[in-house]
């Protein structure tokens, strides 16, 4: 039995885990659910040995253990199957399964390949995957790779006497329905030889496969339930943990859009990804796109900013047909983009606040063809004041600022560039509650100024709360369109019906 007792973990001022306790019994499948930022991933990292807790204890079968790295976690029977699969695609299946564990097959420093391949065959049989262990992992599809990962985790049986616990982080997010069924069937049959901790956003799946479920919120375990005594709405209410009051999303400030169409898509398509997307974004409108991973919504937002050029249909900016072949063309057309990956795509972390603010339109800080540093500082200082960005000065390097403040700098950049269409790609990801609320306020401010916003979000609740109109996508096509005027919001269940 794996036991977590009073574990806490902080990153700077953010408390990712607070006094978390839970246990995984032998031959049990335990579900772990929570919103993004609830602390699930941090807990998984601590259990898999890639991160150390600040406080608290872990124990296996009543004996305290310290999981200082992955290898140590493995010795205690804990193995992780990663969300962003961890196989080395240029190596064979057998080599992957035994990666860093080749010692058992070496004699006089040489590797007995045949024995290694035979051993891999045994592990693959456990998960019912019929592939040749000598093929490269890269030649397998996602579902098969996931099974190889599982086989790799099960290979631990040979090396440790500890009971096996396998951590599955969002294993179904990249799988199709039939592959999910296969995965679940394997998990049920493997329950006799291992326990599982299963993390997923899909609550129905969690209830279907788990014996018990832990619900996390804001870094704490807020509930523990037997699966057969819970429902999806129950879990959801506990995850959100507050009454859905309209004030949270500043619904009172949601004014109807003002007519003039800023951005229009007609039959917009990208070959093999999404097709026939139609919408019209008006001044002051917040248009949400909802859909699960693989629905094409992420790619649609990338297309609207020129990252992924369209292959059919047309885009019209202010009524003029526009072809966006690169982000620079999108910026020239007046479109701004607040990316999901703030640290890599949002800001140049090692440049100053001022340089990041003017990055999309350096002209505003130039005179006689040269950069006027004093003017640039003044522009940045103005935004620092207007958006209450907490930074010692405009010369501060962005890396040292908090996520919420970084997000405001990205926004200040697009305001400086006078973008009148903004694409917000998961704008509140990784922000704490206070910073999220500031972003919601800013979105209402932008709307009031007549800026059109395209929004994708981590939660349906946020999408519904913030948007005027919601498009629902499934398998690359729009399946529904909801009007979400203030006071007449659609329900999550209504949207979900069209998503899956």
């Amino acid at each position: 039995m794996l036991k977590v007792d009073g574990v806490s973990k902080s990153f700077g001022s953010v408390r990712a885990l607070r006094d978390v306790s839970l246990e995984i019994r032998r031959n049990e499948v335990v579900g772990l659910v929570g919103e993004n930022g609830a602390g699930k991933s941090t807990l998984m990292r601590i259990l898999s040995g890639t991160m150390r807790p600040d406080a608290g204890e872990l124990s296996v079968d009543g004996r305290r253990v310290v999981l200082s790295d992955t290898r140590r976690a493995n010795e205690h029977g804990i193995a992780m199957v990663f969300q962003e699969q961890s196989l080395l695609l240029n190596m064979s299946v057998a080599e992957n399964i035994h990666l860093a564990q080749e010692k058992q097959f070496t004699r006089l420093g040489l590797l007995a390949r045949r024995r290694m391949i035979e051993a891999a065959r045994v592990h693959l049989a456990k998960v019912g995957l019929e592939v040749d262990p000598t093929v490269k992992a890269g030649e397998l599809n996602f579902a098969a790779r996931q099974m190889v990962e599982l086989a790799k985790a099960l290979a631990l049986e040979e090396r440790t006497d500890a009971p096996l616990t396998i951590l599955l982080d969002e294993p179904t997010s990249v799988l199709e329905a039939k592959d999910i069924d296969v995965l679940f069937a394997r998990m049920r049959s493997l329950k006799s030889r291992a326990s599982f901790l299963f993390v997923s956003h899909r609550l129905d799946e969690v209830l279907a496969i788990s014996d018990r479920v832990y619900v996390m919120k804001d870094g704490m375990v807020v509930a523990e339930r037997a699966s057969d005594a819970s429902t999806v709405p129950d879990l959801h209410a506990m995850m959100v943990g507050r009454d859905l009051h309209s004030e949270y999303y500043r619904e009172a400030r949601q004014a109807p859009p003002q007519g003039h169409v800023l951005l229009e898509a007609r039959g917009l398509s990208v070959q093999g990804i999404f097709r026939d997307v139609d919408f019209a974004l008006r001044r002051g409108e917040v248009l949400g796109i909802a859909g699960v991973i693989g629905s094409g919504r992420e790619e649609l937002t990338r297309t609207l900013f020129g990252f992924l050029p369209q292959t059919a249909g047309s885009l019209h900016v202010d009524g003029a047909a526009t072809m966006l072949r690169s982000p620079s063309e999108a910026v020239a057309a007046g479109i701004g983009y607040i990316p999901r990956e703030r640290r890599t795509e949002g800001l140049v972390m090692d440049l100053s606040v001022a340089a990041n603010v003017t990055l999309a339109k350096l002209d505003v800080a130039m005179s006689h063809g040269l950069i006027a540093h004093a003017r640039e500082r003044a522009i940045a200082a103005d935004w620092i004041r207007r958006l209450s960005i907490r930074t010692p000065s405009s010369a501060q390097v962005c890396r040292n600022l908090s996520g919420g403040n970084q997000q405001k700098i990205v926004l200040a950049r697009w305001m400086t560039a006078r973008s009148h269409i903004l694409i917000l790609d998961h704008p509140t990801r990784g922000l704490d509650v206070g910073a999220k609320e500031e972003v919601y306020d800013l979105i209402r401010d932008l709307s009031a100024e007549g800026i059109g916003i395209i929004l994708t979000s981590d939660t349906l609740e946020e999408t519904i709360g913030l948007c005027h109109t919601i498009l629902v996508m499934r398998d690359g096509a729009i399946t529904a369109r909801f009007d979400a005027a203030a006071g007449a919001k659609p329900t999550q269940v209504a949207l979900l019906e069209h998503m899956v």
Partner: protein
Amino acid sequence: MARSAAAGIPVTDAMERLRPFAPLLLLLVLVVGIDVAEPGFASLTTLSVVLSDASILFILSAGMTFVIMLGGIDLSVQAAASFASMVLAILLPSIGYAAFPAAVLAGLVAGLVSGVVHVKLRISSFIATLATAGIMTGLSLLSADGRTVAFLDAGRDQSQWITGAWLFDIPNVILIAALVAGFGMVLQRYTRFGRYSTAIGAGEPAARAAGISVDRYKILAFGLSGAFAALAGVLLAARLSSGSPELANQLLLPTIAAVVVGGTAITGGVGNIGRTVVGALIVSIVRIGMTFVGVDIFAQQIVFGAALVLAVCVTIDRSKIAIIK
């Protein structure tokens, strides 16, 4: 993180603050050290020799600084310099002074071609510039059957603006290098090109997502590197009164060393042209100083290699770099 843990210890903290000045300190230590070992080094005459040597090296490194800051490398600088010397020597008799800009233009075009190959064909700059270097060397060799082309008397006269010393006996080469340094500093600090180069080097995805035409600025940086390399080749040719296909051989590594020793990170993002001035001086002083104090010519390479490792170690905090390639 290691950084925050280290910040609590005053000694490390002080070292962190001193780090940007390490190359300058190293330069001072070298000058004083050599002068103590062999009095007379810190004289005006030697200084003039060192600065002239450093000038050529600096101009070669100036364009390279931008390329490295962008995260690339230009292995074609020595080939471009030699190529420019041939263009100059061949054209001087027929077109006179116009041969100087023509030679620089040849380097610019070659650099732009490297840039286009690198960016548009998506070939790493290492390979792209190695290839253009080969092509330029081949053209240099073919143009005069592999021979050196000496300037005529008229050519020597026309090179006076390089070989002369018009201001207080300071060799003009040094003044030209000073102009290039000033130009580079303005370019870096006050122009769109400079700002975008820094941004691309420090975070290319973010620069792209801000709407910067990353490809265009990369190509420009390679063009700049080619043009500066050609200018260095022109200066070298004027000093030797001849063009040669092998004129700048042996200068590629000192050029890269000058950029890196100055404190520009080979991984991109961090760096500036001022640092390269210091780097070029350090490399020149190590080279000339060793001869001055009588280090065996063969042993000089050993000292040079050791000095390079030492300089890079002290100028950049290696602990912040996750993966060393």
